């Protein structure tokens, strides 16, 4: 690492001078939540946000849903109004990357060499898309979906009649497939596993969603990995499972990887995610981390990495609390959602393959839920167009209440009354 060229006394002065400012690397959901929580908790020192995108913090979930569909104007994506930053005393640096953290002198070094001293630092660097590695993956016409810029690039070619090959049958791929089908594109989804959203949902849900996509005209290719993308100077075809499919656009949604390089190069522990404790603190007592970039011990006692709005919000809140000296253990129930067609999927908790499944409601009604029971208690709930089941499920997970599976499955009993 770069050797600091300052003497020890200077270093101590620097640290003391700046102990009242907080620098946040990243300008996404976790970053802005931290700003909001720090101010709500009475922190009055300067806050600097360093973001490498061209935009102020914005919501990502609508990108693959209403925004791609053209039903959500860009201005509404922003998490705060333009005047918020000045009012909140928060300096927002956009189009700015940090290239190093000098922990010994508590400074963040920017790409242009400028150094920003910090009293406390929050790493809210998020995640980046996992890139497809097959031959042809770099051809023009291969798209990813993570940022406003990504969607704007996709919008330009996202027109009726075009053939889109979606690589990956997870949340992003399927949300894009649903929007594409609605907008009249010809959609093929390639998924290497034997079912959709295999990492996230129960087999019941996978089957239900497969049927819904097929009803909308989507060609689903399960157990089919993409082997090659080809064309003359741009995407023209995709080869998968030994067959060739014509395609104008490829959309890759095969997961994300945590942005942990800055932390790792600064000597902080990283294990597929920046390692933090239950107060979102790293091994350095002046540095916290929150959101998609972290690996933390979840409420069930295992080290996990969560890629979701809930974790960004809750972990950032806990980081803010710890930064102002009011630490509180982070043990919130994770929750997720996905919009595909007119189906609102809401999930709370983390399921395991060994859980006992209890279905409530009939999938044919397109309004049902699947509860995952472990040791007689609800460990997770997946609700389709059934927000009350989700809300009650989430509450029971948090409380660790034992439930009667027969009552849970009985739709004659209102979900609010399942506990008797």
């Amino acid at each position: 690492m770069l050797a600091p060229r300052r003497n020890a006394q200077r270093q101590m002065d620097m640290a003391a001078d700046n102990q009242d400012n907080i620098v946040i690397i990243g300008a996404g959901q976790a970053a802005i939540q931290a700003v909001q929580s720090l101010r709500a908790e009475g922190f009055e020192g300067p806050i600097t946000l360093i973001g490498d995108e061209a935009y102020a913090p914005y919501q990502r979930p609508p990108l693959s849903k209403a925004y791609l569909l053209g039903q959500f104007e860009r201005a509404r994506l922003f998490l705060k109004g333009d005047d918020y930053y000045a009012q909140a005393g928060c300096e927002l640096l956009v189009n700015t990357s940090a290239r190093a953290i000098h922990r010994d002198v508590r400074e963040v070094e920017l790409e242009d060499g400028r150094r920003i001293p910090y009293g406390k630092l929050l790493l809210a660097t998020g995640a980046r898309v996992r890139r497809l590695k097959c031959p042809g993956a770099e051809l023009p016409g291969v798209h990813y979906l993570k940022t406003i810029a990504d969607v704007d690039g996709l919008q330009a070619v996202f027109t009726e009649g075009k053939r889109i090959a979606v690589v990956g049958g997870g949340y992003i791929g399927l949300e894009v497939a649903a929007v594409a089908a609605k907008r009249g594109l010809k959609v093929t989804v390639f998924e290497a596993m034997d079912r959709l959203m295999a990492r996230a949902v129960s087999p019941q849900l996978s089957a239900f969603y497969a049927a819904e996509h097929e009803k909308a005209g989507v060609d689903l290719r399960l157990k089919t990995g993409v082997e090659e993308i080809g064309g003359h100077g741009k995407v023209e075809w995709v080869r998968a499972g030994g067959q060739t499919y014509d395609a104008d656009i490829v959309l890759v949604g095969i997961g994300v990887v945590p942005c942990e390089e800055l932390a790792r190069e600064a000597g902080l522990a990283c294990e597929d995610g920046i390692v933090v404790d239950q107060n979102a603190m790293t091994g350095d007592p002046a540095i916290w981390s929150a959101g998609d970039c972290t690996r933390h011990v979840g409420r069930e006692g295992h080290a996990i990495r969560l890629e979701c709005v809930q974790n960004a919000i809750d972990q950032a809140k806990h980081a803010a609390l710890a930064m102002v000296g009011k630490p509180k253990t982070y043990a919130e129930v994770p929750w997720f959602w996905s919009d595909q067609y007119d189906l609102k999927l809401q999930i709370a908790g983390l399921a395991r393959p060994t859980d006992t499944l209890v279905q409530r409601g009939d999938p044919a009604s397109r309004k049902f839920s699947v509860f995952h029971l472990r040791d007689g208690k609800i460990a997770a709930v997946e609700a389709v167009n059934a927000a009350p089941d989700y809300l009650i499920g989430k509450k029971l997970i948090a409380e660790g209440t034992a439930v009667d599976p027969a009552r849970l499955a009985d739709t004659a009993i209102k979900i609010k009354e399942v506990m008797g």
Partner: protein
Amino acid sequence: MANRAAGKVTYIESTGKAHTIEVAEGWSLMEGAVKHLVPGIDADCGGACACATCQVYVDPEWEGKLPPKTDMEETMLDFAPERQSSSRLSCQIRMTPALDGIILRLPKSQH
């Protein structure tokens, strides 16, 4: 055009502190609050009528000027803490010039 302010909305925290915000036409009353320094509306789900954390109490003189609740909003309000007869989910109400001057009171907590 899309950002034309339709009027002012006053949000009053449970402590009595009032915030008056210009809200654009077509935006939800939830968005008007969360995009500014108004604490007290969480809107965990981002406005999808899926979390019941954007509850507001509507001042009586304004109640009749609002569009009626959908079944979905009614169902979700059942899960909002300290629900009152004047409760609405602010993500489900779009700003229009007719709502210029509306007063919304915020619950102590959304959870």
